[in-house]
């Protein structure tokens, strides 16, 4: 009887991390329109990200045409409040199909609703001011409305970002660099809090990448918000997504499939 109890406990303990795997949802990557980063460069990074997610067994869809913003909106509505952790990756643009342009819908947009459930859903943004939108259709208001924080901004450039120990564990591809539009941690308000700062400046007032979470609701992840440069945005995104889905550190990019191979063997 005691052995049976121990076995059941062991099985339950082994099942715990697998539960989070099964609770993981899907990833949508949108490069139909990009902002500040060229589309070709964004597609190149997205392709790397897709490859690594495929290797990790994470379901993903890449919307690479501007005509697919409506499909992205459909995906987002279906992923909202579905009990799974879903992640949308943007490259600077914020399609009007999910957030009406000019901040016309300050509350209740498809995008905002996406991050306002206990699923913990996520927006990742690369390469420019988060939610700025093509040609500045939202400007600072995009981020401020999405976070419901008046006055929060992402200005700065040449800001040194030094990888934290957590950042190094989560994303081995992340190295020290200079961010052009880092997140201002000293402007967080309400229930928003830092979940993990992966790279930050000396006093921690600026960070990029960083995972911030709205209490037990959704998350935002500004990630390598630079103009140009060769930072491996796609690989870093894949590593952070994998960590979020797994809630466990991963191996460097080249070893991801090995790690998942071992996990699959356990399963």
């Amino acid at each position, binding site marked *: 009887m005691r052995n049976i109890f121990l076995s059941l406990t062991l099985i339950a303990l082994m099942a715990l991390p697998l539960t989070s795997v099964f609770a993981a949802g899907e990833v949508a990557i949108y490069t139909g329109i990009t902002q*500040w980063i060229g589309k070709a460069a964004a597609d190149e990074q997205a392709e790397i990200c897709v490859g690594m997610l495929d290797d990790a067994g994470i379901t993903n869809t890449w919307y690479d045409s501007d005509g697919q913003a409506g499909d992205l909106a459909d995906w987002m509505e279906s992923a909202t409040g579905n009990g799974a952790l879903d992640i949308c990756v943007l490259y600077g643009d914020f399609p009007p199909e999910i957030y009406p342009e000019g901040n016309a819908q300050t509350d209740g947009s498809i995008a905002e609703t996406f991050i306002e459930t206990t699923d913990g859903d996520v927006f990742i943004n690369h390469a420019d001011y988060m939610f700025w939108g093509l040609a*500045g259709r939202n400007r600072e208001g995009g981020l401020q409305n999405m976070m419901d924080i008046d006055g929060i901004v992402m200005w700065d450039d040449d800001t040194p970002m030094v990888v934290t120990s957590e950042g190094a564990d989560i994303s081995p591809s992340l190295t020290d660099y200079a961010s052009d539009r880092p997140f201002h941690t000293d402007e967080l308000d309400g229930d928003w809090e830092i979940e993990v700062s992966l790279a930050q400046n000396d006093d921690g007032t600026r960070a990029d990448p960083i995972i911030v979470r709205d209490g037990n609701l959704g998350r935002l992840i500004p990630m390598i918000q630079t103009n140009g*440069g060769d930072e491996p945005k796609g690989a870093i995104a894949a590593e952070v997504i994998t960590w979020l889905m797994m809630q466990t550190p991963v191996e460097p990019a080249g070893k991801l499939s090995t790690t998942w191979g071992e996990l699959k063997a356990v399963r």
Partner: protein
Amino acid sequence: MRFSEVRIPRWRGFLTSLLVLLILMLLAFACHERASSPLVGTLPIQTITTPKDEAVMVYVPAGEFLMGTSDADIEHFKEIFPLRDIARFDNERPQRSVFVDAFYIDKYEVTNIQYKRFLAETGYVPKQYLDYPPHNDPNFPAPVLEWEDAVAYAKWAGKRLPTEAEWEKAARGTDGRHWPWGNEWDGTKLSGNDGTGLKDGYKETAPVGQFPQGVSPYGAHDMAGNLWEWVSDWYDPNYYRTSPPNVNPKGPETGDGHVLKGGGWAENLDFTRCANRQGGNPGSLIRGFRCVIDAPPEE
């Protein structure tokens, strides 16, 4: 002793005259240098005021200057931008000597009061003009986000946008300096970003001409910071490597958007360098412009 007996020997008189002449020549030479030196921004600057837009313009003489970024600069950048990928500076290389004819350039960025006068007189409807706070006070630079809207203003004023070469010469003079005031970064000399956002006293842009200590060698203000500035050239990141003309270059025939220069109020060391050039999708760069006219040949 008779007067005739105390006369100065002829050879001493000749020496005295020579000395006086030498002193006068030295004085004249010194004055000439002070008046014409292109590298000292506090000295007399030749200006005109154009009637249509009532803009003060400063004179930039004909001649050569160093355009772009040299290998030595790159070594310096490794120290001041240790976290930047050096490949980031490839679009500024190689540095070359470029000749441009004499021209006048607006002393300040085109302001809202000037741009609104243009809109009122012509009925022109800009594609993207940020006519709202905190950018739209009369003496603030006009945030004209689209290149075509800047060109339309320039035509109305009887002017044109500067070429990238003209803009860069007006900003850095002839000696290849990094910023309009020299080679050392100084965040007090521009409407720029110090990491806290309010060091210069302005939330975002500043009224034009508020940072005279950062004036360019020819007397142009705000060539670093405040608003990014449109120039007439198309943007091609590889243009400098194609051995372009070194006399009055006008940029490639076509490209990925138009070149932006000078950095903006949100920027810091790197983007505000005179040689920095941005093209393609300008992203969250807030941009404006200033204009030029050709100077008469005799100047």
